[in-house]
Structures are given as structure tokens and as C-alpha cells.
């Protein structure tokens, strides 16, 4: 009897909090809502130390925080959420920690595919972004499976950056763009023959120049518009090789809270700051 009334009270409180949250989001929605928010999930290990948890438990606590954040973002109407789950630089960490993270990723990717997961609840399409060849086969296969399974979801998008750095992304995009241009030029020259080589060269001079659109076509994060807000938790104020290309006009927000401590108030504060600068940024975007 007692546990039934406890659980009834618990659902009542949860329902009340949910209603209050929706009301708050309704008020926030009178201003512009960011289309894309990116997160650097910093502070999991410090959280585990602070709470005296076992090694690796900080990342699990971080995963729970991520689920809450995703829920808040999608309820608010943010269409794209990007997370920096694992950097290429993180491979430098202790092998046990790296393996622990890979195992956690595998477990959670498989969890995403379950019926009751947040991904199905909110119609989220999942993409894994990065140099996926650097991942071990089980994680790579699970990622491919998750992308395929959520391909028909169209309400929101979750981009999980794994084995990713911006500098690797840019080099990869440049390689692909150059390969594409150089490949086209070579084939066209062969087709036109050796004669009229000067005309041929002039005609393809424009094609040989790498343009901005060529890089943007091959960049991993080309699936999404540039983020409106980049949130990095734990008070550190650096990009750590994340979305360097995409964050040139993005609002940077560094709350002191560690990632597992992030909450609704941080999202609200970030959105309010976004709404403050949005008119100016829109005006600049149109001018440029």
C-alpha cells in the first residue's frame, strides 16, 4: 500500500514538473529558439572523483544527464543536437579508460534502439560523425545499425561525434574535394584529347579551384546547419578541436557545472543569451 502511494506521489510530482517545464518552454518560445545546440560533455571524471564514485561511473552519470538534456532540447523545439562523445585525442587516455568508454558506447547505442528509448519517443534520427574507421568493429557496426534503424525518424536529429576532431574533419574534406576536382579534370582532359590543351586548361581553370562549397559538401557535419549555441560544461573555456569550422558565429557558453550536473536552468540561460544576440547575428548574416 505504502509503495503504491509513494509511486502515485512520484508520478504526480513528475507530471507536475513536466507541466511546469512545458509552460516555461512555451514562454521561451515567444522568442527565437535555437535550431541547433552542440554540447561538449566535460567533467565526467571530475564528477566521479567529487562524488567518490568508482572509475567509469562518472561517464554513466553523464549518460543520464545526456538523456535529460536531449529531452529538454527536443521539448523546447531544438531540431539538431550534437554531442562531442569521443575525440580522436581521447585515444591518448589510459587503455582501460578508452576500453571502458567503448564498452559504454556499445551498450548505450544498443539501448537507443529499444522501443522505449528517447530516440523513438521523440522521433530522433541518429548520425555518428567522425573518422569511424578508428573505432573497433563492434562499435562501428552498432553505429551503422543505429543509423539505419533511425533513418525514417524525421522530427529531430542527434549527431554523435565520435572519433572526431575538427582538424581531421577539415583535412578529410579537403582530401575529398581535391580528389573530386582532380579526378574530374583528369577525366575531362583525356576525353578532349591532347589537342586544344590550352582551351581545355582554361575551361577547367575554374574547376581546379577549390571553393567553399566544395569543402562544405565533404565536411562530416554538412548534414546539419551550423550550431547556434555551443555549451561546454565544467567551466573550461576552450573548443578542444570541436566544430572549429562550424562555430565561427556561434554563441559560446561555459557553465561551471560538471556535465552530470547540467540541468534545465543551464539550457534556459543559454537560450535567453541566444535570444539576446540573435537579432544582431541575423542582421550580420543577411549583410554578409
Amino acid at each position: 500500500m505504502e509503495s503504491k502511494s509513494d509511486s502515485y506521489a512520484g508520478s504526480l510530482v513528475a507530471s507536475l514538473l513536466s507541466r511546469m517545464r512545458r509552460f516555461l518552454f512555451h514562454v521561451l518560445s515567444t522568442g527565437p529558439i535555437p535550431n541547433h545546440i552542440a554540447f561538449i560533455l566535460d567533467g565526467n571524471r571530475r564528477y566521479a572523483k567529487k562524488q567518490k564514485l568508482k572509475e567509469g561511473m562518472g561517464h554513466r552519470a553523464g549518460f543520464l544527464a545526456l538523456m535529460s538534456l536531449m529531452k529538454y532540447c527536443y521539448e523546447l523545439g531544438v531540431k539538431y543536437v550534437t554531442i562531442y562523445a569521443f575525440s580522436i585525442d581521447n585515444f591518448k587516455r589510459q587503455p582501460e579508460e578508452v576500453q571502458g568508454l567503448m564498452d559504454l558506447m556499445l551498450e548505450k547505442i544498443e539501448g537507443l534502439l529499444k522501443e522505449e528509448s528517447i530516440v523513438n519517443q521523440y522521433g530522433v534520427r541518429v548520425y555518428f560523425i567522425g573518422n569511424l574507421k578508428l573505432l573497433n568493429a563492434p562499435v562501428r557496426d552498432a553505429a551503422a545499425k543505429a543509423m539505419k534503424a533511425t533513418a525514417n525518424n524525421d522530427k529531430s536529429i542527434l549527431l554523435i561525434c565520435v572519433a572526431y576532431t575538427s582538424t581531421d574533419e577539415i583535412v578529410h574534406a579537403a582530401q575529398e574535394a581535391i580528389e573530386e576536382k582532380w579526378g574530374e579534370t583528369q577525366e575531362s582532359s583525356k576525353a578532349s584529347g591532347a589537342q586544344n590543351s590550352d582551351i581545355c586548361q582554361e575551361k577547367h581553370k575554374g574547376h581546379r579551384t577549390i571553393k567553399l562549397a566544395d569543402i562544405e559538401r565533404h565536411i562530416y557535419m554538412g548534414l546539419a546547419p551550423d550550431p547556434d549555441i555551443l555549451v561546454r560544461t565544467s567551466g573550461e573555456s576552450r573548443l578542444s578541436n570541436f566544430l572549429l569550422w562550424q562555430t565561427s558565429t556561434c554563441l559560446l557558453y561555459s557553465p561551471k557545472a560538471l556535465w552530470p550536473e547540467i540541468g534545465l536552468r543551464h539550457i534556459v540561460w543559454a537560450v535567453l543569451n541566444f535570444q539576446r544576440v540573435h537579432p544582431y547575428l541575423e542582421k550580420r548574416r543577411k549583410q554578409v
Partner: protein
Amino acid sequence: MAFLVNSCVKVGFVFGAVSPTTLSLQAEQDALRFPFPCPLTMCCSESIARDGRRETFFANELSLVKAVQIQETLPGGLKPELLPNHIAIILDGNRRWANERGFKELLPNHRNGGRVIKEIVFLCCKWRIKVVSIFAFSTENWVRPKQVDALMSLFEEVMQNDLQEFMGYNVQISFIGDKSKLPKSLQELIATVENSTRGNMGLHLMIAINYGGRYDVMQASRSIASKVKDGSLQVEDINETLFEKELETNCAEFPNPDLLIRTSGEQRISNFYLWQLAYTEVFFSVKKLPDFEEEDFIEVLISFQKRERRYGGN
């Protein structure tokens, strides 16, 4: 006799009998007193002048001396070994500062900001920061024609009037950005300033004019593409190290900033550096540029020194 005393001090230092402070004081006295340089000091100073690095017999000792000399000029709370090698600054807030005070003239407003930047650069010279970059004019600033005219005039004025002062501080000045779109007179001045200061071995000041982070990545991509087209490079050999060498910041000994400061409280990069900011500590100061003073700069440096930089590792 003086030469003998000087030599004994240096030998005494090497064997720990003389402290770094004594050595630095001795070096100062030498500079003031002796008309002919002591062969030992001459060897040291020549080798420093030769390549700007301390590859001399007294390399470690002179580093200590320099550290002590810097420490003696550093304000409290700052440690010389924790100072950033390269500081980048986004100069923001001139117009808002002027609007708040009802100033309408553009050129005097920007002159105010220019004065502040010069003071910061000279502080960096004093504290032996190696490289300073300033975001003087973005690829996106062309949309404000009146401001463009004021800024171009200011750049010409500063380069003509202040070059001697920068030479006095031994500052090397480089300009990064697409200079081809600038007025011809400014392009000529830029070339003159770069040539005049090329041999200076002090602080390296990089002025970003008509520069953008994406512009720099694009010009590097095009440069690499032309090497692939010529056959001097294979696509599969393109890597991050090679790419970084093609960026315009490669002219500096420390091309990537350790610290980026933006004044006026706006919390974004605004297409300043892109690739170069991968691991840079960012500091947003609420002060507008004309109000940014030495104590604000010291506060930023103290904050930088407390940061733990892990580069993704442990």
C-alpha cells in the same frame, strides 16, 4: 681586470656559487660600464642574435637569468614559466563605447582602441610574450563602408607614425589576410613595415587584416590542391601537419594561440582564427576595448595560468 671579474662571476654562476639575480645585475653593470663587450657576453649575445634562441654554452643559465629578469618586472601573481607563448586578441567594443558617450566621429574612436592595443603589445614585449595576434579587420567587415574608410585611414596612420616605436621595442610585424583587396597605398605600407621589421628578434606581432578563419583554411586547401595538381604531392599524403604549414600563421614561431581574449563581453569567435584555436583557452572580458587596461590584462593572464590544459588526454 673588469673582464676577469666578469668571467669569475659567470664561472661562479655555473658552479652555483653565484645566484641568477647576481648574474643579471652583473650583466646590467657590464652593459653600462664596459665600452668593449666582454668576449664571453659577446659570444652569448651574438649567438642569441644569430638565431633568436638560446643555443649557447650558457643556454640554461641564461634562461634562468631571463626568467629572473622577467619575474622582476612581472606583477604579483604571474609566473614567467606559465605565461602564454601566443596571445590573440579580438578588438571589440569601440563603436559601442563611443555610442554610449555620444561620440560620433569614427576615426578618433578607433584611435582610442588603437592606443589600448599598443599598450598591451608593449606590455607583452616587457613580459617576453613571444607572439601577439590582433584581429584588426575581418573578411566580413566590408559591409560597413564608413567604418572601412576610418579603419583603413587608421591603419595607414599607425604604420606611418608608430613604426619607429615598434622598432625601438624590437617588434617584428607581419600581416595576415587577403591583402590584395586593400587600397594600394596600404598594401605598399604593409610591405614597407614587414621589410623594415623582418630582422627584429623581439615580440612577433601578427596583424590580421581582411582575414577570416575560413579564408585561411580555404587558401591552404587551394595551395595544397595546386601541389597535388602539379604532382608534387599525393592526396593520401595530405595530413594535419602539412595542412597547418600552409596556413598564413605559419610565419610565426608559435602559430597557434594559447590564449584568445575578446573584449566587450560578446561570447563568440566571429570567424577569427579557426584551425589555430583548436586548443586555445578563450577569455571573454566584459570591458569594451577602450576600457581594457593593464589590470584587466593581468586578470586574464592570472586566469590563464590557473587553467588545466589536457589536450584531450589524462
